[in-house]
């Protein structure tokens, strides 16, 4: 049974700007799905429409349906959706900079039980031992990677069923990217948590997810199992860098048109 279903979702910003047009996708329970696409394709918009965070940016879902579990969540506020088990790790980390990492975790815990809180916190520190070292300093002064870890850890404190990650590898060192991808995989495997992953790093992403959607100019243009997509020549060309090694110094100045942009 799919945990999350988007049907034909359309989002308009500022009453005039049509950002995504008719996006449909599904994430199954315990499944790990990726959403790929170039800059400005509408990936973040899709995630925000799911987590209910379009409001502050003057965006609005004008058409379509979003269901999580057996409920339509379109009319819920963001906190309600979190309570329902959906959590969104925002692009650009956005931790609470003036709070310590520990307080960041406190702020995100929704329940009442102290024991459960401690349990969750220990789990987060087990995934991200580095965070424990920086427990006293303000989160705003953590390095980029540590902030990303904190953002994911903070999201885990809400005890989600589905976690959405918006470009978690953005600006991270190769080592950290590996680490984070590894942990995402672990969380998915250990806790059976569904994952919807937005990424630019297609190569690494397609390695850990089971399925992926390709979104371009606000529309889903391709979808399928990770293995299938990986072998698609277009995907190879535009997302994976063709062959194993790209010779940047000799890439073509003018490329052929993307086939799906008829």
């Amino acid at each position, binding site marked *: 049974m799919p945990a999350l279903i988007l049907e034909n979702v359309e989002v308009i910003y500022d009453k005039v700007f049509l950002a995504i047009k008719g996006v449909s996708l599904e994430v199954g329970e315990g499944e790990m799905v990726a959403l790929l696409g170039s800059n400005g394709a509408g990936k973040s918009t899709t995630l925000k429409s799911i987590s209910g965070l379009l409001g502050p940016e003057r965006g609005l879902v004008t058409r379509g349906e979003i269901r999580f579990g057996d409920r339509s969540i379109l009319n819920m506020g963001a906190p309600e959706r979190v309570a329902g088990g959906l959590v969104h790790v925002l692009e650009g980390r*956005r931790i*609470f900079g003036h709070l310590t990492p520990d307080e960041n975790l406190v*702020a995100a815990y929704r329940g009442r039980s102290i024991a459960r809180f401690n349990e969750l916190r220990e789990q987060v520190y087990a995934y991200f031992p580095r965070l424990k070292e920086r427990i006293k300093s303000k989160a705003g002064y953590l390095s980029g990677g540590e902030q990303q870890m904190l953002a994911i850890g903070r999201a885990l404190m*809400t005890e989600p069923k589905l976690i959405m990650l918006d470009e978690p590898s953005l600006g991270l060192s190769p080592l950290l990217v590996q680490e984070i991808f590894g942990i995402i995989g672990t969380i998915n495997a250990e806790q059976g948590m569904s994952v919807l992953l937005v990424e630019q790093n297609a190569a690494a992403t397609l390695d850990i997810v089971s399925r992926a959607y390709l979104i371009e100019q606000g529309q889903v243009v391709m979808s399928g199992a990770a293995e299938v997509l990986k072998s698609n020549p277009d995907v190879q060309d535009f997302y994976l860098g063709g062959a194993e090694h790209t010779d940047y110094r000799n890439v073509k100045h003018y490329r052929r048109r993307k086939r799906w942009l008829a």
Partner: protein
Amino acid sequence: MAYFLELLISGALTGLMYSLVALGFVLIYKSAGVPNLAQGALVMTAGYAVWLVMAWGLNVWIAIPIAAAIMFGFGLVVERLLLRRMVGQPVIMVVMLTLGLEILLRGMVPGILGSAPKPIDLGIGFAPIIIGDVFINRTSLYGGIVALALVGASLLFFRTRTGTKLRAVSDDHVSSWAVGISVERAIGISWGLAGIAAVVAGALWGSSQGVDWTLSALLFPAVAVVILGGVDSVPGVLVGGILVGVLGTVIPGYLDSFAGGSTRDVVTSLIILLTIMVRPFGIFGREDIERI
């Protein structure tokens, strides 16, 4: 010397009375990230509320909790009607919104309840406390004690989980939402708490000068207090209040007869200006973290 001591003490106590007004500002800023320039008007409204409830024939000590409940509700309403829609707007918009609220309240409350000064009798009495040649104003003394208590309570409050969540909200609305904190409720609570602080301030100030629109003029010294103490610092309210009160009493106490005019507002203005020039975030305020 006794003169100096008296000025010092009465300044400190007056300053604590300012702290009562300033506390509301800090409560809102620290938990919602909103600079509330309507705090003066909130104090005025609260003063009117206390008076109104007393006019129904109730005892002050019953009237104050009732007024507190009214003002807490009012805070929630303000959030629901106004601030909910301001999330993510630049600071100038929010500042202006609260100023608009201040103007609205200053028109509406006296417009409906009458503009002549209304009495509030807390039964404190006039007799000063006299130590040697030093006279201490009773109202200010009680006000100061209440201020200390409220500041202490606020400090404890921000240590609690709800307090941490409120601080998170002031940091970043959108990510608070993203982790399931109801920003609306947080802002509502912070305004409600500020409303309660306003009741205490309104009752005490109202008892000494009567309740009318001029209570909203307390905003100016309160602004000096929060700037000096740090806009988001609860202990800053205390220290800032005492400093503003002392400087604003001692300096005029010696200068006014020479200057031929009251220098208190000058002192207050200079406190604001100098703080901003020398230490923009006040004594205890947090710095903005800006990463390039």
